[in-house]
């Protein structure tokens, strides 16, 4: 921060906050996340609207979906958010070992989440809870299946992409490429990860509990 105090304050120019590249990188990620909010809105909004319009084609929470298993999975994802934030905090304090450790923990938890979800999918499909009309056998109707897999599927895809990004960041961390002065890559992956967690908090409530 001190080098910036020496810079002449110029109207219209926003100096970097002293950490190389982070400010622009971070701003870019935030802007991108706004578009992601809109994307999930179209999917979740569709579910909300169709369920409101035609509740008879859906089922009550718990009838088809397993609240208990998914609650545990939700907890796993929340834990992964904590490990992520601890990874970033480690980096801020220059603790490289901590960074790597907590990144790895986040990866493991994230992978667990996806794994459990895949397991849940397999179980549901066996019960006849599918997106396609002809093959649907569970409670409610195929619309329930379509909307469920659409929302959770795209969320799961985002988690998977997040895990891949975290692996990429971990590899860079293992090469010592992040420092307290150059932590942009970790911070933006963290932002993305927390966002994905945030979406799940809302999604879990709307799909499994309401």
């Amino acid at each position, binding site marked *: 921060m001190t080098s910036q105090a020496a810079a*002449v304050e110029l109207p*219209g*120019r926003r100096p970097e906050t002293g950490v*190389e590249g982070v400010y622009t990188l971070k701003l870019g990620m935030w802007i991108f996340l706004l578009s992601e909010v*809109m*994307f999930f809105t179209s999917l979740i909004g*569709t579910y909300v609207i169709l369920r409101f319009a035609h509740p008879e084609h859906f089922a009550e929470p718990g009838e088809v979906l397993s609240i208990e298993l998914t609650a545990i999975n939700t907890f796993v994802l929340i834990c992964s958010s904590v490990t992520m934030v601890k990874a970033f905090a480690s980096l801020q304090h220059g603790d490289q070992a901590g960074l790597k450790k907590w990144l790895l923990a986040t990866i493991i938890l994230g992978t667990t989440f996806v794994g459990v979800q895949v397991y849940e999918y397999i179980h549901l499909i066996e019960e006849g809870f599918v997106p396609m009309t002809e093959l649907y056998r569970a409670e409610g109707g195929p619309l329930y299946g*379509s909307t469920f897999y659409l929302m959770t599927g795209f969320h799961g895809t985002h988690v998977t992409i997040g895990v891949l990004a975290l692996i990429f960041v971990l590899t860079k961390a293992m090469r010592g490429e992040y420092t307290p002065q150059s932590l942009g890559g970790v911070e933006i992956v963290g932002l993305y990860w927390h966002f994905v967690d945030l979406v799940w908090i809302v999604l879990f409530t709307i799909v499994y509990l309401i």
Partner: protein
Amino acid sequence: MSVTATKTDFDLLPFAGEHHEEIPFIRKYIFSTDHKMISRQFLFMSLIFLALGGTLAAMIRWQLGFPGQPMPGGGVLPDTMAPGGIILPEFYNSLVTMHGTFMIFFAIMPLLVGVFGNLLIPLQIGAADMAFPRLNMFSFWLAVPAGFMMLGSFFVEGGAAGAGWTSYAPLSSSGEFTGVYLGQQLWLGSLFILGFSSIFGSVNYVTTIINMRAPGLTWFRIPLATWSLFITAWLVLLAMPILAGALIMLLADQTLGTTFFTPETGGEPLLWQHLFWYFGHPEVYILILPAMGIASEVVANGSRKPVFGYRSMVLAMISIAFLAWIVWGHHMFMSGMNPMLGMAFMITTMLIAVPSAIKVFNWLGTMWKGNIHYHTPFLHGAAFVSLFIIGGLSGIFMAVTPVDIQIHDTYFIVAHIHYVLFGGSLFGIFAGIIFWYPKFFGGIMNEFWGKIHFGLTFVLYNVVFFPMHSLGVQGMMRRLYDPYQYEFLAPLLPLNRFISVTVFGLVAVQAIFAANFLISLRRSNKCGPNPWKANSLEWTLPSPPPHGNFQEMPVVYRGPYEYSLPGAAEDYLLQSEPETGTEGAERPLEPAAH
């Protein structure tokens, strides 16, 4: 006190003064991260699609002017499209669909947002490049496969998408209604990929403009072209993801047997329309705002006067961007939606005319008593204003729900669309290409042939599209292969034939522009940094600017419209010209009257 920045902040940016090794061909021309090269790549891609879209239009007009007759040159088309050169009804549906799709998604949008966004933003704000140059490159290279998918869809079994560019469900849900199977899916996939290209681009534009402006370039000193692109980028960022979701759902309905939009199992066809137009209305403002920005630049430059009401121009664009989100239902007045919504949307739609009108008055105010230089960009800019007025006026009629009962889905709508998209956006694009040609390619286009092209295009364009208002009111529906099968429309054939022949002339005249464009590329055609005597930062650079743009960080002292300052040596004053006494002082704020 001299206004120099410490070097720390700007060390990261590769300014032109830096020594670069020779960049290999493939990194310079193919996989380039230089925003200027990317804008040229978008330019070539979009102009090709513009020409293709125009060709599709000519074929549509052939059918409407000479129904059921063999088209000249139609023999090259396969029998699935036009046996013996006679256009089939299914092919006609594909023609209208793909004409709209090509023009909107692969011509106008990439021209305004991809081309001018990429060229102008870093130059006008004094940056060396975009915030994320590799993401920028990725944006272009995502658009390419999307384009191939669209083109390729003509050649698959069943042909190209045929449900209109609006692809309403359930018509588009199943091939049994349109005869199109794979083509419809390719259409959806292509737009999905293109959406990523747009969204990544908008992330780049917004971040760059917020964070990378040169010292002294406050928000209200940004040229209106960049302002318009900034606001447009926000609309793209927030609207395209909604379309993405809708496209996925429709694709799932088509391929997986899901039922989002099929009524039998609880799906809702109207949901498609709501999602599509929730995206679709901001989309049309995406298609016009950058052209408005360009118009402001060329009109001020040609008039040698500051933009009248610069601040209100900015606020008007921001208001348009806000209101754009609450008017989408006016595309659905006749859909059977809740009538209460119909009334609400009528009111909001009439509201959105206000900021547009403010802009029109400001353009006129800019020209008023100006020392006008009728250069070709100015002519196109003035045409933009006048044709946008007409398009806006027809829009007022359409905004009124009861009136829409009669004119919905008729040629009145087609007239409106083309007045704003061709009269508006395309004339804006012509203005922009000619005005910034030196920054694209280093030379300058020929003024004489530019004026010939302008004059002929302007006249023929109006002859084509103005009568369509009348055709629409008389009941001629759009997207109809054979309107004359209806007795009450049969008398409209002569006028339609006249329009069609004029269209062929209009298309032919574009060859003048193409020739001018291409011939002006020759190496011997060189131009100085500022042939139009304009003020914004791009005009301080060589034509074309080198890699890295600026030799050193520019500093901005004033707004971009300091034309004809009293007492100044010249009738323009560059934004980055240092203060040289009182002449360099910023023009006092305009009186509160506007």
